[in-house]
């Protein structure tokens, strides 16, 4: 069956199997920035935004996302033009192996879109599904707070 997605602003049509999850469709079509790991929704490495809301793409059926908008980490910023969140994660040492980083940044990105001045508790809650086994979480929370400062400076 065919599905229509808008991925990082570009319209795409993909052929999928009816029982496939979104993660597999994205990676097969070159979106390798979306990481796969647990396939149970427990680690958050595969996080993407669907119509702006963070989801684990390993537990979302690809067919359910038909005609929706998907944002991967490459839709947030690039090497040449990183988003303040990406700069802040580097600056504050919130990245080590990097496997969880796209998911964590996407969760934080969705939070800041909705709530530009979150409390520490709100940041922790927004990132509670993105498991990091290297850096830990203190630096991530610091990075999100630092990005708020960078975003304000950009304005």
């Amino acid at each position, binding site marked *: 069956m065919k599905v229509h997605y808008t991925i990082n602003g570009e319209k795409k049509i993909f052929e999928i199997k009816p*029982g496939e999850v979104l993660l*597999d469709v994205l990676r097969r079509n070159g979106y390798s920035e979306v990481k796969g790991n647990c396939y149970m929704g427990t680690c958050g490495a595969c996080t993407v935004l669907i119509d702006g*809301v963070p989801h684990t793409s390993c537990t979302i059926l690809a067919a359910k996302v038909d005609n929706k908008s998907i944002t991967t980490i490459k839709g947030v910023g690039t090497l040449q033009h990183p988003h303040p969140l990406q700069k802040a994660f580097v600056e504050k040492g919130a990245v080590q192996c990097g496997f969880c980083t796209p998911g964590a940044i996407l969760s934080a990105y969705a939070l800041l879109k909705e709530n530009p001045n979150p409390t520490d508790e709100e940041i922790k*809650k927004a990132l509670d599904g993105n498991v990091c086994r290297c850096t830990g979480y203190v630096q991530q929370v610091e990075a999100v707070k630092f990005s708020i400062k960078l975003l304000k400076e950009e304005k």
Partner: protein
Amino acid sequence: MLKLKNVRQCFMPDSLQEAVDILRDSQGKAAIVGGGLDITVFPRPYIEKLIFLDKLHLNYIKEKNSEIRVGATVTITDMERSLLIKNYLRGRVKEILGEVASQLLRNQITIGGSIARGHPYSDIIPLVYALRGRIVLSDGKDDEELLIDDFYRENFRELLKNKIVTEIRLKKYDDSYRFGMKRFVRNATDIPLLNVALLIKVEKNIIKDASISLGSRPGIAYRFIKGEEFLKGKKITKELAEDFQEFTEENVDVGGDARLSKTYRKHLAGVYSKNILLNLMEV
């Protein structure tokens, strides 16, 4: 990793009638997809058809006839953020919803899906039990409304071969009601090893009414009616909370599994029941 290897077709019906017709004609080989978490994490190999509810306009939370009516495809996040839930039972329901699983999964798990799948470790089922929620089922033409106790008392899986859960109705409670729930989890985002929910009506420090449910016991959640009877008519005090712990440990229907022994689960049930009651004293 293709987990649902045998799925051949996906359907996005435009009406409940169409959805029920597909379900009925599939003779057990179709699955209703709310958020889709259950079907992807616990794939059932006999499923050949997926029926998505996305076009059925079941994503609403509204107030009607002194009830909060929650459409089946409302996610935990939608419900947690709803203005109708914000101050419901002094904001305790909102707090509990925000503790379930992780933000990513709360964005996917639907209230209707949680009820329809009937998982023993669900946090939503004991919550709805304690709130004496009512489940609305549709056969495509007519609605049937069942108290959650009756929904699970009847063979709900048999019911859902021909019907779809469309709505959950929660009664609005006045200020004399107090609600609390505790989940025993190894870490914040884990599935619970026990959950206890308690709703009481207190007038002049006397418990006039009580509704208690336990889930992850390890069977599907149930109403602890003996515990409700124990509390009714008694003055809410620290001593009562101590007695209630003992009574719960002796009378609660919980079992053991690989994750938690029966003895420990009984003890936890008692301690959690006591602690919730103590917390409710301070409301």
